[in-house]
């Protein structure tokens, strides 16, 4: 009986297996996840003070980094210009529909900015002051200048005081007082003489003065500023506009332009698309 039972037990157990709830592959994946998340899981007491010291150093470095870098962002969604004082006491007149990001490094005293839109800068003398915009950068030291850069397709930099270096991917040019350049699709046009307060007046009043400017330039600026697509037909592209043009309200601007330049237009708001027809 007992030998029979023993054989029966052995035979029976040979069919048994232990079933887990997860496969070895799933278990391994979980372990790997833990190992990645817990690189330092347990520490010997002797190394704890080293960890504490390292943590203090890291916190100090983070604090120092935060203190060193004074940064911020200013968005002007209104139609009127806003005056902004940067941490280094430089002054910016930021036009409506424009955005400016800035970072001031207290240690190196370098200032870097990113502009989408239009602004006039009165820069306090100091270390490098770099404005990035779609299509290039402007580097200056203590000066006054204006930048128009809503998009990469059209931009303008006017130097009012001091020296300004304008760089695009293809070329760079140094502007002195009273000179400006236009940037179209990465290409620089100019330098040409500009009126000292042109951009600041624009920024503050929303009125633009154009001298014999191709209509395509004006539409490039408008499309960047208001965020719509436009294709200027060839029959219109060689027409040039001269005079003052309010550019704060799109419908008002288009109305004036269409009468002055003799074209009709349709604006599809759902697609943000402007279609022009020469009359």
């Amino acid at each position, binding site marked *: *009986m*007992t030998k029979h*039972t*023993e054989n*029966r*037990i*052995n035979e*029976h*157990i*040979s*069919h*048994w*297996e*232990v*079933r*887990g*709830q*997860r496969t*070895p592959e799933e*278990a*391994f994946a*979980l*372990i790997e996840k*833990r*190992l990645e998340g*817990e690189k330092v*899981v*347990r520490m010997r007491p002797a190394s704890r003070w080293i960890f504490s010291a390292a943590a203090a150093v890291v916190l100090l470095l983070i604090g120092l980094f935060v203190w060193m870098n004074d940064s911020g962002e200013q968005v002007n969604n209104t139609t009127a210009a806003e005056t902004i004082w940067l941490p280094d006491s430089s002054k910016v007149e930021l036009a409506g529909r424009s955005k400016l990001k800035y970072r001031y490094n207290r240690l190196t005293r370098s200032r870097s900015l990113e502009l989408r839109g239009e602004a006039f800068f009165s820069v306090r003398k100091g270390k490098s002051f770099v404005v990035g915009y779609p299509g290039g950068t402007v580097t200056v030291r203590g000066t006054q200048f204006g930048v128009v850069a809503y998009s990469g397709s059209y931009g303008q930099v006017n130097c009012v005081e001091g020296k300004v270096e304008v760089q695009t991917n293809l070329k760079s040019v140094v502007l002195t007082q009273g000179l400006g350049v236009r940037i179209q699709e990465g290409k620089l046009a100019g330098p040409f003489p500009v009126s000292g307060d042109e951009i600041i007046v624009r920024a503050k009043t929303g009125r633009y003065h154009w001298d014999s400017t191709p209509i395509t330039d004006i539409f490039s600026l408008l499309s960047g500023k208001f965020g719509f697509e436009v294709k200027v037909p060839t029959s219109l592209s060689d027409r040039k506009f001269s005079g003052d043009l309010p550019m704060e309200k799109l419908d008002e601007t288009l109305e004036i332009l269409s009468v002055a330049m003799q074209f009709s237009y349709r604006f599809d708001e759902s697609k943000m698309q402007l279609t022009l027809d020469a009359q």
Partner: protein
Amino acid sequence: MIDLVNDRQWFKTVFDENYIYIRNYIYYLSGDMVLAEDLVQDVFVQLWEHRARIRHETTRAFLFTVARNGYFKHRRRQTLDLRFKNLFFEQVENQSPEYLLEIREFDEKLQKAISSLPEKCRTIFLLNRIDGMTYREIAESTGVTQKAVEKQMTKAMALLREQIDRKI
């Protein structure tokens, strides 16, 4: 210098070779699969953390030791209820219901009898019979002599026989 790539390969190999043994070992001790699967994770994490100090030939013994110590921290005095999947029922064909019922009853009795074995006796017996570990392997892994393993095996079989015969 730590060689992470080789360490990872070594770790995966050790895992593949030992995972089932260690998980089952904790299950034989505790009768709790959820606990076994949780603890086996801790065991391998500890292996990774101590990898620099572990000799190749003692890796399995290390795993069994960590598993045993891990289990004793969670140990609760309770009646064990070990459950084993009997593959016989998945493979069987054309058997009378009476025969199947008899097998099922025997299965039930044996599972209960094994659950009631003393801890050391039970784990050694199951590592041999279910996981196919040799007496020598069990001795090396659990830190007992081969003679002690043989003794526990004889004791386990005697206790099981006794219980089964009594119940039959």
